[in-house]
């Protein structure tokens, strides 16, 4: 019987929410703590692993990230950093949110950090009305409630131009 340690080319199959299957090298999949835990337990790599919350487009992005990070040696941090910023560069907000959800579900901390940071950076210096637009969030404050929160927040804006 070939153990997983002897067979480095072992692959496993991940299935996206919309039914697409991805054949992934095991060392790439191990970037995900969720998959690592599954493989460490009794889950056989011959099984197809369904990821019902992640669509094919997002899963392809996630696996691209995992492959780069799994293949890079630890000495190439600079190269990985430029890959990360390039990876997220032109991504729209919807794709970024899907990445956060996927990285959170699959427990890929590095990806979760950079995607969350990218979203946080887009709302930097933006007034709340604009943040509502960006995130498509409905204002559920009454004018009185909003005024009260604004009053309570006054300190946050003091000392800034």
């Amino acid at each position, binding site marked *: 019987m070939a153990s997983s340690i002897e067979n480095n080319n072992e692959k496993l199959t991940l299935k996206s929410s919309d039914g697409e299957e991805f054949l992934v090298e095991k060392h790439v999949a191990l970037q995900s703590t969720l998959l690592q835990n599954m493989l460490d337990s009794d889950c056989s790599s011959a099984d197809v692993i369904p990821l019902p919350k992640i669509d094919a487009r997002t899963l392809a992005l996630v696996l691209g990230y995992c492959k780069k990070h799994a293949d890079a040696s630890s000495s190439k941090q600079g190269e990985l950093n430029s890959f990360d910023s390039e990876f997220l560069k032109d991504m729209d907000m919807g794709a970024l949110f899907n990445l956060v959800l996927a990285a959170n579900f699959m427990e890929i901390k590095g990806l979760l950090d950079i995607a969350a940071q990218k979203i946080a950076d887009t709302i930097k210096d933006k007034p709340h009305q604009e943040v509502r637009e960006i995130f498509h969030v409905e204002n559920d404050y009454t004018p009185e409630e909003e005024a009260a929160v604004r009053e309570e*927040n006054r300190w*946050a804006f003091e000392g800034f131009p």
Partner: protein
Amino acid sequence: MKKQAHGHFPDDCWELIFQKLREDDERDLGSISLVSKRFLSISNQAKLRLNVNDGTLPLLPNLLRRFLHIGTIVIDTNAHKDIDRLLDQISRSGALNLQAIKFRSRLAEPPRDGFKALALNENIKNNLKFETVLSLSFLSFGLFVCKKLALIWDPFSAFHLVCN
């Protein structure tokens, strides 16, 4: 971009994003909390570090009540009397996760009354465990609180409350 409401987005993911907002510029948090009631509530949880300057000093009791998960308080005021009072306010707050108090500027002498007040708060005292002390960093001097307290004055501008 396809118009898509992010109402389905879980609170813990929002919290991760809010924690990535600038820590040294409170305006980001101010904007977020005005977006919606849900954002206000999540942002209150997400705030882990509080910057206190002369302007925010009078509001401190309110802020400590609002941001219950504060782990670090950064103090940027030189008024010695104020720092004693400020530490006293912190000691009477419910800041259960408090791990570090950092000072932006060098003080002429330690705020002894403030330190004593902190040492008398069981919650704060017990929360700042010895293990966490090693990971704390300070700009000009630090404050360590442990189960048994001693005040040490270091003439080279550093003083600590340390375990003994």
